[in-house]
Each structure stands twice: as C-alpha cells, then as structure tokens.
C-alpha cells in the first residue's frame, strides 16, 4: 500500500492538520478493531448464546414465571423512577438555569452526586437508612411498611442512581436559552404555569426526550444499587439484570442470555433513538439560534 502513494507526495498540497494516508489507515484500523473486539463481538455473543438451543428454547426461557416476573418488575420500576426523575430533573434544571441563588454551585454538585458514587454505595445508603438496625427501621417495621428487599427499595435506589440524567441534559440547554422567551410570555400576560407549558417545555422537548431515554436505559439496566437493596427473591424482587446473574450462576446459559438479549435489545433501541434524536435535536438547535 505504501507503494501506491505517489512519489511526489512531499510536494502535493496537504493541509497541515491532516495526517498521512498511512497514519490515517492505521488509526482507523485500530479504532475499528477495538470496537469490534470489545463491543460488537460481545453483543453478538449474547444473541448467539441466547439462540444456541434454538428459537423455541429461547422463548421458553423467557416465558418462565420467574423471567416474566423479572421483566414485569423492571418495567414497573422504570415506569415509576423515570416519571419521578422527569419531574425532579426539570425542577432542578429550571431552578439552576433560570434563577440566581446562594448555594447554586452546591446544588449542581448534589445533582452530580449519584454519578460520582459507586452504585453499590448508593444501595448501601438505603440499607443503612431503612434497615432493621437504622433509626427508621423499627418504626417502619412496627407500621408494617416494607422498604428494603421489596419494590419500594428497588424504586428508591433506581431513582437515586438515575437522577442526574435528565437534570444534566437540561441544565446547559436551559442556561443557553436564557430567560427572554419566558419574560416575553409573562409580559404578554401569561401566568407562570402557562409560560411553562406553552413556552419553556416546547423549547426543551428534544433535550428532555433525550434525557428520558438515557434515564430509562439506566433505570432498566441498573445492577449494583438494586442488587444491594433487592434481596434477590425470585419472582418477587428480581429485576432483569439480577435475574440474568442468578440464571448464569445456575449454569442456565440459555435463560441467562435470553433475558440478557432483551436488555441488549433495549440498549440497541436506545442507541438508535438517541442517534435519531441527536439528529433532530441538532437541527432544531441550529434553527432555533437565529442570532
């Protein structure tokens, strides 16, 4: 290949920031090889393993009551956690982007906290907070409220871990958009509520959808924090990622990879939608900044 390069390449005009064709090829090959080895192959392996014993075995594994329960629980947790974080995220982003107040930097740090803490620690926090040895534990037990090793605990841990996704997505967007649109709406007589629904929300819709997508993917895929608070009760407190682990430890590879393939599918769908949204988002973004 080196021979293909024209002999006069030293005099051929080349941008100062462009590498030689050889360097470019090596770099591209490295990147592609790495991607293939570490991302595409494992993904393929999941599906190959899941279908290793045929399509029938695949669907049979998914139809097992415990698997169905895990899928249902995962959907339920995401259905609670994502709307909660939607509300909290918009509220936090609104407060941070549109108002000046003391402790703003601290609030931004707090929003980021779940990103910087290991998910296992996040789960452990809830064990310490609601466990039988904690302050709240005995009171909860005496009132018959079960948080740990039950759905509420899983939901709480998931909300904690996935909190930053929506807020993080919205803060820069809302800061960039400023407050002129809102002020215009107010000066035209709109109430705060009308301003939010008719001006603010439409302005952030693509960013919001993007945040929801990422939040949902993480809520369904979360392992560490949920693992600590769930108690791994089959058919009751096992989410899909936990169920995969149990099945795998029991050498039930078809079952484990069948459930895992659903999660992988979710990841793929998220990726595709994310790409579509980014296209839409950047186009809307470029159109919406006329100045």
């Amino acid at each position, binding site marked *: 290949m080196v021979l293909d390069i024209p002999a006069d390449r030293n005099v051929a005009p080349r941008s100062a920031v462009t590498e030689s064709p050889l360097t470019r090829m090596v770099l591209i090959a490295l990147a592609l090889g790495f991607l293939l080895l570490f991302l595409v192959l494992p993904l393929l392996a999941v599906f190959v393993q899941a279908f290793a014993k045929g399509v029938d075995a695949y669907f049979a594994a998914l139809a097992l009551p415990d698997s169905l329960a895990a899928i249902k629980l995962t959907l339920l947790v995401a259905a609670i956690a994502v709307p909660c974080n939607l509300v909290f995220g918009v509220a936090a982003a609104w407060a941070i982007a549109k108002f000046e107040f003391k402790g703003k930097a601290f609030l931004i740090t707090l929003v980021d906290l779940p990103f910087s803490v290991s998910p296992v620690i996040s789960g452990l926090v809830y064990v310490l907070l609601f466990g039988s040895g904690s302050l709240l534990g005995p009171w909860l037990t005496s009132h018959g409220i079960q948080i740990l090793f039950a759905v509420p605990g899983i939901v709480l841990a998931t909300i904690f871990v996935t909190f930053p996704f929506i807020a993080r997505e919205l803060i820069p967007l809302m800061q960039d958009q400023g407050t002129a649109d809102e002020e215009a709406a107010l000066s*035209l007589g709109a109430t705060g509520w009308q301003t939010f629904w008719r001006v603010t929300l439409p302005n952030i819709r693509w960013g919001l959808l993007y945040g929801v997508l990422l939040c949902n993917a993480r809520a369904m895929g979360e392992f560490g924090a949920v693992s600590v608070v769930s108690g791994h009760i089959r058919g009751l407190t096992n989410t899909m990622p936990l169920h995969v682990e149990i099945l795998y430890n029991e050498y039930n590879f078809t079952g484990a990879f069948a459930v895992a393939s659903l999660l992988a599918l979710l990841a793929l769908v998220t990726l595709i939608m994310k790409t579509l949204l980014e296209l839409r988002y950047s186009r809307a973004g470029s159109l919406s900044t006329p*100045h």
Partner: protein
Amino acid sequence: MDLSIRKVCKRFDGFNALDDVSLDIGSGELIALLGPSGSGKTTLLRLIAGLDLPSGGQIFFAGEDASRRSVQERNIGFVFQSYALFRHMTVLENVGFGLSVRRGPARVPAAEIRRRSLELLDLVQLSGLEKRYPHQLSGGQRQRVALARALAIEPSVLLLDEPFGALDAKVRRELRSWLRDLHDRTGHTTVFVTHDQEEALELADRVVVMSQGRIEQVGTPDEIYDRPVSPFVFSFIGESSSLPVRVEDGQVWFEDRPIGIPAGEVANGAATLYFRPHDVELLHGCGGCLAGTVVSSRRVAGARRIDLSMGAGDVIAEIEVPADHPSLAKGRIAFRPTRWRIFPARADAAPTTGSASSGAALPRLALTGS
C-alpha cells in the same frame, strides 16, 4: 397613557445600576433612552415593564402607583433585543399568544384571535407570512413580528430594548422611519432604549441621555444637540473637541493668551472649552484666537478633518475645514469656535460620575458669539 418615574433606584449586588432617577413621560410620546452600555438605560426599561422591581422609588402609570404590580398586571408591550419569538410557534401563533393566554371573562375566542393577529400582521406589513416559523424570517421581519406580538395585547405603553440593534444598517434606517410612522398612527406611549445617538435624535420626541445610572439631560433632539448641559452630554452626542482653558475676568485664556471668546458667567479658574469640529471659523493670523500645527488630516465626505497639536502640551483638537483648504501645506492653522460651551474644571474633572455637582451646581453656559 402617561408615565411617571419617581426617585427610582436599582441595586445589583452593591452596584448602583440606577441612582435616584426621575422622569415624566407624556401620553403618546416617543421617548429614547440613550446612553453608553452600563448607563442603566435597559435597567430603567425593565423596571418600567415590571421585569425587575426597583430597590427604591415609585413608578406611576396614569397617576396610579404601579411599582408593585406584576409584569402581567401592567399591560405593557415589550419588544426584546433578541426578539424572543417563540420558535416552535408560527408567526400567527406568536402574534396571537398574548390573547390566547387570557382566561375567564377576558377570554378571546379563537376566531377573534386569528382576525386580530392577521390585522396586526397587515399593520406591520407581513401579510402572507403568517404560516412561517421565526427561523424562516429575516432579522427585520422578526423584529416586526415581535412588535406585532407586543401590540396585540393593546398595551398601555410600548417598550423596546435596542429595537434595531441586531439589524444591518440599511434595514435599520428603513425600520426607523417605519416605526416613527407606526407610532404616529397608533399613538402608543413608546419608550425605546438605544446606544445609537443618530437613532435617538432622528426618531424620538424627547431624548433621555443617561450615564452611570443617572439621567444627564432630558430634552428634544435639538436641545440635546445644541444645548448640552454637561461635558458628558457634549462629548457623547455628536462630535466634539475639547481644550483645557482658563477663565480670567470674563475672558477665556488658552495657555498664555486670550482666545477672543467671552467667558459669560463662568467663574474664574480652570475650565474646559467644548466645541464641534464644524463650528469653527478659520482665520488668517490672529491676536486673539486658537492656533495649532497640523498633525494629520483625513477626508470625511465633503470636508476634511484636521487634528491640530495645540500649544506647548500634547493637546489635540479636531476641526473641520473645506476639502480644498490650502492651509494644509502651511502646517499651521488659526481658528476660533463659532459655537461653544465652557464647563468649569470641577465638573469636568469627573464628567461622567453624575455627582451632585452636575445637577445642582451645573455650570451656567456661555452662549455663542456669532
């Protein structure tokens, strides 16, 4: 509707953005708030709108104290510098927004909103563009949509923040006369903010010159240009040259000689002489006049501007001479201002601070000689 601003202050984090500002605006007037950036003009506009609340003082709308009213209750039309059009709404929806948010007894039927929005679009000459989105419009068109949107709620006062700031020069001139025309037809009390003196002088009934959070002068464009009351206004409006002079016994001295200008009522002592470059007469040698060595010259349209090095110091004065003036070659030009102002040095030492001296102890003005 008339507006009255009484001793209004606005502080931001210990910084006085507005300091004891009072101003009366008559019904139907077109007022320009003119000043350099940081002079507080936009702050004043936002206080009138109710987008910010004053730290002190009151604002009266038609005699009623509106200082504590919310922006919605004030019924103002505000046109933002960036227009702040709602990007996800069509032009028609933008214009109709103010009517569509009305609830209860004030509710406006959809057909009526549409009719009035179309009417306003016709008024701002944008008929046929109602289905477009803001990003499909030019800057001048966006500006007019913003104006139509503000007019749709039949505001008691129209407030515009740098209305032509983001437009190119040609569009700006067109919109300027168009806005004047629109104002004369609709008769709204209008206040606009600008840093462009040409815009202010050409468009406004009265101009409010602001500097460092205070009002320096309020007056008609003629008054502002011909009779500036402070060194700041003189140097901010139009072009000006200034020279450090001395007043002695009714005569104005520059360095070691009188320059043939009566000092009027300015007290003895150091002072500053202000004049416009074009308000000078050229002389052929003189006993009582100003003279300087030509430092540089440039052609400005039909005339020539010359920088003169005056006297012993490195003081530079700019004057205007006919384009074919022969004295360029001679290197030395004698002249005398035909219209001028003299301000005592005390006020001039801090011409833009707007301290009490520029208000109460304002220098009496020497008037023109010719």
